[in-house]
């Protein structure tokens, strides 16, 4: 178990940016949101998946929407938590642990803000290990934990609840449609699961991994060492080639920027 401090936060932001591998949005805004919570005296506790009892209730929280909207319409901050409370009310269950669903990009930070605002601990894990565009691509879905019931909430505190959706593909489509009407960005809580299911499906240790990755890169930059080598060292990786990105196009299809 560890507690996230200012320095950890800077490292997680850098690490999550790398794990986003070009997608997931810039963690910068999420970092500022989290830093602001720390300014207010909040404590964010990180627990290991194995520390969570099998019978505990866990929920994944994050943001949904286009990065182009979220850089302009800054969140109120607690949208995913409002969605979570609605989900608790509907299911009659009390959530004891928050789990990130996407460690890459800006969604790495959203659970931290919710943890700060609710006092709930965050599990050191996620369901992607990087950034993916759609709900059904996460490990919960792949290993059979259904996304519904799910809830999403906007800046006004309005909530849309999806009690029962047959597939996660459809949940993604319906949730996206609602997100558009909510102004292009929303907070989401899904799935709700037991501690046992969480441990069975998550990719463990990714929050700590993001922190260590970021810390190594920051250290390399400060000492003018090679940051790429620092990443390779932390990941036990190998450099295949080095090159330069000459042209990048980001067309927009079906209301979402591909990653």
């Amino acid at each position, binding site marked *: 178990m560890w507690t996230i401090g200012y320095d950890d936060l800077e490292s997680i932001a850098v690490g999550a940016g790398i794990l986003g591998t070009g997608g997931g949005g810039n963690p910068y805004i999420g970092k*500022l949101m989290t830093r602001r919570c720390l300014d207010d005296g909040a404590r964010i506790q990180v627990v290991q998946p194995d520390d969570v009892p099998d019978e505990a209730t866990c929920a994944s929280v994050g943001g949904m929407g286009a990065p182009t909207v979220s850089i302009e*319409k800054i969140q109120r901050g607690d949208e995913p938590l409002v969605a979570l409370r609605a989900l608790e009310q509907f299911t009659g269950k009390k959530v004891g642990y928050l789990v990130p669903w996407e460690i890459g990009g800006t969604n790495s930070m959203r659970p931290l803000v919710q943890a700060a605002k609710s006092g709930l601990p965050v599990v050191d894990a996620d369901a992607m290990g990087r950034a993916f565009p759609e709900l059904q691509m996460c490990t919960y879905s792949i290993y059979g934990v259904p996304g519904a019931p799910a809830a999403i909430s906007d800046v006004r505190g309005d909530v849309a609840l999806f009690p029962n959706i047959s597939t996660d593909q459809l949940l993604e489509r319906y949730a996206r449609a609602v997100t558009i009407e909510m102004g*292009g960005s929303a907070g989401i809580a899904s799935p709700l699961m037991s501690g046992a299911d969480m441990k069975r499906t998550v990719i463990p240790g990714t929050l700590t991994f993001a922190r260590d990755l970021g810390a190594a890169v920051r250290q390399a930059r400060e000492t003018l060492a090679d940051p790429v080598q620092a990443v390779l060292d932390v990941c036990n990786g190998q450099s295949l080639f080095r090159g330069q990105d000459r042209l990048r196009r980001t067309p927009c299809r079906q209301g979402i920027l591909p990653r």
Partner: protein
Amino acid sequence: MSLRIGIDVGGTNTDGVLMQGGEVISWAKHGTTHDVTDGIQAVLRDLLGESIAPGEIDSVMIGTTHFTNAVVQRRDLVPTAALRICLPAGEAIPPLYDWPEDMQACVGNHRFMVHGGHEFDGREISALDEPELTQVADYLIANQIESLAITGVFAPVSPDHEERATSYFLERLPELNITESHQIGRLSLLERENATALNASLAPLAKRTVAGFKRALDVLGISASLYITQNDGTLMSAEFAERYPVLTFSSGPTNSMRGAAALTGLQDGIVIDIGGTTTDVGMLVAGFPREASFAIDIGGVRTNFRMPDLVSIGLGGGSIVRDGGLRLGPDSVGYEIREKALVFGGDTLVATDIAVAGGWADVGDPSLVASVDEAIVKRGRRTIHEMISRCIDTIRTSSAAVPIVLVGGGSILVHDELAGASDIHRPDHYLVANAIGAAIAQVSGEVDQVFSLEGTTRQQVLLAAENEARAKAVLAGAREDTIEVVEIEEIPLPYLPSSAIRIRVKTVGSLD
């Protein structure tokens, strides 16, 4: 052919050129004075000389880093209130939250969030709340705050709430300096808000400075039109610059790259501008600097201006040489080079001494560096070229060798053999490339608007936007047959169910 004067008011020097068409008639260099006026007057006097009457000058273009320096050095900024129209969105990060502490201290802690703002599609997030504006106005009066920055969510899509707030404040406080974010920048709220606040806090300095420019012209009886150059290398009127000083933030490097393009006729290549302390390396694409695609930091504050993509390192003519030539800079003797460098009789070994000792530069007295160890000269030369080659590698987009233009007083440091260069240009007047860039600057017309595609086609909408941008350039003084479209940007609005696109078109044209 008409005569025009280009002036670059830098932190250390004020440079000027007198040009007729593409030809440099004369140039001048003086120290920048605190009030800027005296330095400009001295330059203007030199340029006019005995033979040119003030009435013969058609236009004067001034490029200045004065406002950038004010921010970087935290001087002449006034207390400024930052008002964000956003609630219930936006609360998670208050205005100016990520500013360095000393910058926050300059503008003070006067931050407000009120209801209002828009969604990406122009819907209101909530209605603008007049009683909340009243509270802000009361606060401004009670605390005697004279500058206000107003930023609304999605104001670049719909400026309505910003404009309504402005009219409300001006009714109660007619003397208030207000900057609206939709006039300043693009989407990305925090960066636009930062730039808006910087602009508002520079308002009094901008008035004084532009008045100083005008006074310098008046004293010498020059009645020519006065223009100020902006970040993208085009001109704005003095009146516009007075209201939007932040638009000059990177005009220095832009002017020197535009000047380098004009002096060599090169449209594509790399420009290396070496001064006394720093080197800026940028890329010319179709005669204009390639723009940076990431957030630009001004004095520790994140902004999202369109700025040239530059690689800057601490290497210049005055860079101090250490470790037997293995290390140069980043510290420099700066403008004291004429006292401190060995070649000028001083006692500090600087980069210029290496170039003179090695025999590829000719300034000062070479006999004064005759005793410098040959090994140090060799290592120093290698270090200089490695530093610059690294910049070239970072800025270029392919491994093919590229033409390189060297400008600035420190460009004598570079030996003719430079890795990555297809050929090296050292144009005449390389010392005043920035003033030349100002003198040749063009006027622009810009359209930035959301268009609906209902009942029309993308081609028709693009054509309409282009025609409007052309008309705006003519309005700004451009000759019709010189107008070119330099930029078309289509921004699809993600998530929008109906088909709409945001189009930005920029045209540029020559004044004569």
